C-alpha cells in the first residue's frame, strides 16, 4: 500500500486508473456475471477476503499472526444462529435481526479481545501457537457441546432479513452487501493505518521495547487491535452464516483456520488489497480445480502454493504483481522520474523480517 500511496499524486485527480477500473469492474460485475459467479465466486471471495483482511491487519500492521480469526468469524456466525432464528429447534432465541447482528459482531469482537489479551501477554512466535491452540480447542468444544452449539450437527435455516423489498440472500443484493462491507473495511484499514492508533501499532510491531520506553501502552495497543480485527472478522462471520444459511463445526475447523492464513499470505500481507486477491485465487481454485486436476489432491496444490509464496515471494501475489509491473514500467518510469527504487523491494521499516 505504501507504494501506491506515494505515487498517487502522479495521476489526475489523485486516483490511479487501475483502482478506478477495479472499482467499476466490481460494481458492474453482477450485470454480466451469472448468479453462480455473483454469489458463490464473487460474494464468497469478498467474505473470505474480509476475514483474511482482519488477519492481515493484525499481522501486517501489528506483527501478530493470529490463527484464531476464523474462530472469531465462526463465533459471530454461531451467535447469529443462537440468538436469532434457526430451523433446528435448539437455542434460537428469536431476537430481532438487527439486534442479533449487533450483538453477534460485538460478541465476536469481545472474543477476539479476550484471545488478544491471552496472546498479547507473550510476544512474536508465541502468538501463533496460542491462537492455534485456542482455535483448535474452540473447534473441539463446539463439536461436543450440544446444549448451546448443537454439537456436530450445528444449526441450519439462518436467513438474512427481507428489507426494502429485497431478500438479502438473493445473489445480486447479497453481492452488493458483501462488496459494501468489504470496501468499508478495506478503506478503514487502509486509512486507519495512518491514524495515530495505526502508526502506534506499527511502531509496536517494529520495536515494542522502544515504544514502551516512550510511555505508550504496548499491551493496550495490541488488544485494541484485536478488538478492531474482531469487528472485521465478526461482520464477515455474519455474512458467512447468511451465505451458507447454516453453521456447523467444520466452519471453525483446522482446515478453514489454515485456509484463512493461506489466503492472507498468498495474497500478500503488506497491503489490505492482498487478502482479497488471495481469496479470489483461492475460491476460483476451490471451485474449478476439480475440472482441471484431480480434486483429491486439492490440499497439496493449496499447500504448495502457500509454501512457494512463503519461500520465494514473501509479499505474496501482490509482491509478484508489483515486481512484474516494475519490470515493465521501469524503463519508462526511470526516464521520467530519474532514479526510482524498485518498488517491489521497498518495504516499510522492520516488516521485511516479519513478512
Amino acid at each position, binding site marked *: 500500500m505504501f507504494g501506491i500511496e506515494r505515487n498517487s499524486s502522479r495521476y489526475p485527480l489523485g486516483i490511479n486508473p487501475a483502482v478506478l477500473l477495479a472499482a467499476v469492474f466490481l460494481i458492474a460485475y453482477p450485470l454480466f456475471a451469472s448468479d453462480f459467479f455473483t454469489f458463490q465466486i464473487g460474494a*464468497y471471495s469478498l467474505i473470505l477476503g474480509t476475514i483474511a483482511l482482519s488477519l492481515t491487519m493484525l499481522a501486517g500492521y501489528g506483527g501478530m499472526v493470529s490463527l484464531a480469526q476464523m474462530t472469531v468469524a465462526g463465533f459471530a456466525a454461531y451467535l447469529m444462529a443462537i440468538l436469532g432464528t434457526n430451523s433446528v429447534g435448539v437455542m434460537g432465541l428469536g431476537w430481532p435481526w438487527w439486534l442479533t447482528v449487533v450483538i453477534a459482531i460485538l460478541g465476536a469482537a469481545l472474543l477476539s479481545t479476550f484471545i488478544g489479551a491471552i496472546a498479547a501477554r507473550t510476544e512474536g512466535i508465541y502468538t501463533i501457537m496460542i491462537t492455534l491452540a485456542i482455535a483448535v480447542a474452540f473447534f473441539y468444544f463446539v463439536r461436543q457441546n450440544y446444549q448451546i452449539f448443537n454439537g456436530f*450437527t450445528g444449526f441450519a435455516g439462518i436467513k438474512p432479513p427481507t428489507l426494502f423489498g429485497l431478500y438479502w440472500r438473493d445473489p445480486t443484493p447479497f453481492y452488493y452487501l458483501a462488496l459494501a462491507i468489504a470496501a468499508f473495511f478495506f478503506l478503514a484499514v487502509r486509512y486507519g493505518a495512518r491514524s495515530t492508533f495505526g502508526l502506534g501499532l506499527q511502531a509496536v510491531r517494529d520495536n515494542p521495547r522502544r515504544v514502551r520506553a516512550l510511555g505508550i501502552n504496548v499491551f493496550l495497543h495490541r488488544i485494541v487491535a484485536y478488538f478492531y480485527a474482531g469487528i472485521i472478522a465478526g461482520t464477515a462471520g455474519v455474512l458467512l452464516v447468511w451465505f*451458507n444459511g447454516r453453521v456447523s463445526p467444520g*466452519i471453525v475447523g483446522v482446515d478453514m483456520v489454515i485456509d484463512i492464513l493461506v489466503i492472507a499470505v498468498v495474497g500478500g500481507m503488506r497491503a489490505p488489497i492482498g487478502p482479497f486477491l488471495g481469496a479470489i485465487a483461492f475460491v476460483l481454485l476451490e471451485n474449478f480445480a476439480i475440472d482441471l486436476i484431480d480434486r483429491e489432491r486439492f490440499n497439496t496444490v493449496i499447500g504448495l502454493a502457500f509454501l512457494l509464496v512463503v519461500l520465494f515471494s514473501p509479499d505474496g501475489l501482490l509482491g509478484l504483481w508489483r515486481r512484474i509491473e516494475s519490470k515493465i514500467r521501469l524503463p519508462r518510469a526511470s526516464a521520467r522520474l530519474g532514479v526510482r527504487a524498485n518498488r517491489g523491494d521497498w518495504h516499510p521499516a522492520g516488516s521485511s523480517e516479519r513478512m
Partner: protein
Amino acid sequence: MLKCAGKTLLAAAVLAVASPAVAQDTIKMGGLATLEGAFAAPGQDGIRGIRMALEEFNHTAGGKKIELITGSSDASPASAIRATRKLVEQDGVQIMIGPLSGSEGLAVKDYAKTKPNVTFINGTSAAQDTTLRKPAPNFFRFSTEGAQWMAGLGEYAYKVKKYRKVAVLAEDYSFPYTQVFGFLEPFCRLGGKASVNARFWVPIGNKDYSSVIAALPDDVDAIYVALGGADAINFLSQYQQAGGELPLIGGSITVDQTVLGSKGKIRKTVIGTPSAGPISDTWDDPRWKAFVAQYKKMFAGKGGFPSPSLFAHGYYINTKAALLALNQVKGDLSDGGKKLRAALSSLKFESPTGMVSLDPRRNAIADMFLTEVVEGPDGNLVNKTIGVTKQVSQTFGVKYEEFLKYGPVSRTNPPCK
C-alpha cells in the same frame, strides 16, 4: 494458476460470461461424494457405484447420452452445498446424485427446495429427517437410513440372545443417535432395559477409550456399540486388551468389512457379535453375487475394495433408479423434470439386495440384513447372514402420524425406563 492476480481476474471475467452449452441429446448428471479428506475412500467407492450403474445402462438412458460431472465435498454441509451449487448452477446438471453423509444430506435437502426444477437423488446419507420431517418434494432416497438399517436387531437381541439389559456406547452425533433409536425402539418395546445413565456418548474421533471402558457398568448382559471406522477399531482392540468380557452388539458400521479387515487384535472380542445393515457381504443370493462379481470385474486392482461397500451399493441403487426413471420418460426433461419425478415416485425395481420402492415421503422401503461375525474358512473374520428382514419402511410399519410422536432421535430417545 496462482501466478498473477491480473490473469486470475481476467479468467474470472471470461468464465463469468461463458455459459455452459447444453446439448440436446445429452443429460447432465451430477455426482457428489467426499473425494477429499478422511472420508475420501468411501467417497471414491460411492463414485464407483455410480459408474457401475452407468456402465450397466451403457451410459444411455431414455435414448440420451448421460454425462457424469463429479463434485467433491469434505463431509461438511457447507462444502457439500458449495459443490452442489456449482454442479447445478454452473455446470447445469438436471439430476444430482449425492451426498454421502447425514448432515450433508440435510443441507442438500434444504438446497433442493430452492431448485424445484432439478431432481435430487440421495447418495448414502442416512439421516432420518432428510425425508421424515419437512421433506423436499424433489429429493428422493432409494437407499435407506440409519434407523432402518437396524431392523431386526433389537428383536434378535431380546428373543434369540435373551439379553434383557444393555449398555450403549456410541459417538455423540446424529447418525449414532439414529442407529441407537433403531435398535432400542423394538428392544425396549419388548421389555428390554437400557437406562439413560448406561449410555455413553463419546466425542467423534476419540481414540483413547480406556477411561470409557473403565466406566462401563458390569451388571448388563451386553453392550450395544455404534462407532465407525477408526473409532470402532480403537475401541474393540482396547476393550480386548483391557480384558473386557461382555458380549457386544454392533451398529451397521461397527463391525463392517473395513473394521474386521483391519490389523487390530479384535478377534476374541468381535466373534459372535450380531449386527444389521443394508448389505451383507456374504449373502448367497444370485442378485448380490452378480453385483459383487461386476464390481470386482470393474475395479479389482484399480483401487476397489475386496467387496463393494455400502457406499458403492447406495450410490449404485440411487443412480440406477434415476436411469430407470429416465428410460420410462424417454429422457424428456423439458418440463423441468416433472414427469421424471412422477416416474421416480412410483418406481419399483429389483436391486442387488431385493425389491426397492418409495414411501409417500420418497424414502426407500427395502430389505435389511441381520448378520453375525464368524470366523471364515480361511481364518478371516466375516459377517454371516443370519436373516433378512423384508420390506422395512422408515416408520417400522407404524402409521406416519403415530411414528412422529416418537419424537426426533436424541441421546435419550427412546427413554427405555
